[in-house]
């Protein structure tokens, strides 16, 4: 991240957009790349206001209501019939989910 001294707007470089898109397996059009570079930059600029706070001694709050030890018994529950399991698959032979060949090594 670089900071633009003039208006303190964070630039979000195209390369970063592309790297993040690749991590998220998200194909973007060139227009989207440019748009997101601008918009994500503006959003990150906005959220930088959190830096005003010293929260180093505050515990992170992951859950809205903080529970512990929710466990289930090891008891079988009927599975879905295979027909239902693969019913929504974009490609199936009726038994497996099919995907383009995974190239080993």
């Amino acid at each position: 991240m670089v900071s633009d001294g003039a208006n303190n707007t964070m630039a979000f470089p195209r390369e970063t957009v592309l790297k993040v898109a690749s991590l998220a397996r998200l194909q973007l059009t060139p227009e989207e790349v440019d748009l997101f570079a601008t918009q994500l930059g503006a959003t990150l600029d906005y959220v930088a206001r959190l830096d005003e706070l010293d929260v180093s001694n505050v515990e992170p709050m992951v859950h809205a209501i903080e529970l512990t030890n929710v466990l289930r018994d090891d008891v079988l529950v009927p599975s879905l019939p295979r027909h239902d399991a693969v019913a929504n698959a974009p490609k199936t032979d009726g038994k497996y989910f099919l995907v383009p060949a995974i190239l080993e090594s």
Partner: protein
Amino acid sequence: MHYQPIIGLEVHVQLQTQTKIFCGCSTAFNPDQPNVQTCPVCLGLPGALPVLNGTALRLAIKTAMALNCQIAKFTKWDRKQYFYPDLPKGYQISQYDLPFSFDGQVELITNAETGESRPIRIIRAHLEEDAGKNVHDETGRGRDSMVDLNRAGTPLVEIVSHPDLRSAAEARQMLEELHALLTYLEVSDCNMQEGSLRCDANVNLHITKDDGTVVATPIVEIKNLNSFRFTEQAVEYEIARQWKAFQETGKTIKDAPKSTRGFDPDRGVTTIMREKEEAADYRYFPDPDLVPVTVTDEQLAAIRSEMCEAPAVMRKRFQSEYQLSAYDASVIIDQGRLLAEYFEATAKLCGDGKQAANWVTQDVLRVMKERKETIANFPLRPEVLGSLIARVTQKQLTIKSAREVFADLLTAEEDQTPAPSMAQIDEIVAAKGLAIVQDDGAMETAIAAVIDKNPKAVADFQAGKQAAVGALIGQVMKQLKGADAQAVREKILTKLSGG
């Protein structure tokens, strides 16, 4: 210049729960019926949510206790994010910075004869969900891969060792030790064919150059080793490969990042999977769908009280309590907890650990192997075998006769339902006259009769043919099946040479 292999293992163990870690689907191994053990949760359907299986947690804690790990009082669940067809949610629920256990160690026997051992340190053990299975097109025609999610969500403990292993053989032994430990505890069936126990090995070499400086070769992770033999072969190959590569290129850990290789068992070689560890950014973060787990000292004590004796402890105890050699103790213990318990019950009943060990490691194991049976199905219960051995130690039966009884009991067992009993031992001994004849009078009479009936053999012996006495002994033994052949021989010799 010489080198020292440095090896660490990451071992994945499927826990033997009835149901998956976050849903109620069966964990049974079922590759022939793909996608029949799934539900919205393990299919990762929109809206489905995970709930932790309490038994998976308990078995995981048992595992960690057996590895002498510290158990965390607070542990949580994180998402490890990557895309792969066998991972339906696009993330694996695992544990990142707060695993449920850490800092353990396992005693590795480094010399089977002497029982010498060395601690191998465990960095951590954490609980996670297994992925499904991708079935690839093997024809090379680039056909679709097939995805089966029956296995997706099976509970796994990942055990990460320090790189404390120093040879391929030790890597194998470590895996064997874990196998013994985890099957003893009944936390996993450790069935390697079914993938219940599998490991990745991290291997590199520390090379001491002639000037005394030490350099390290680049680290290689060998993925998905699913047998003891492959683990040893793969590490062996990799050590040799790295040594050769170093001699040719001089590349050290500073010149190349960690790479990933797979083992091809057909060719016995490791092959490159990923040249560079592609900037793996798993974006771990706490799973908001699951809540943390806390455990109390009381809960831990309760789990500890359910633990059986660890094999390493049992091995030492068998040596001291039953005077077994380190080797015999290992043979018995490596066969699994049920066999060890069988041995111990037998030893207690017959009062002679060494004899019991001989019988168990030779006769019992041989028959089990022939019949492809497990000790659980072995027809002779320890009280019967113990009773049989006791008759030998008390000189009521010869070893040879006892073996005959043993065989007859097993033969008889084949056409009857009740398991062979101690009463049957008596029946067989009586029917065959196997009891050791302590009555000298009976023996004298029998010898006299045989000598009378075999003048030719007597003449041959007296003419110097020592072997002729064998025929006489044989005939006496035929009449007196329980007689001590040595005593018969001595008495005949005495009689013929002047008595």
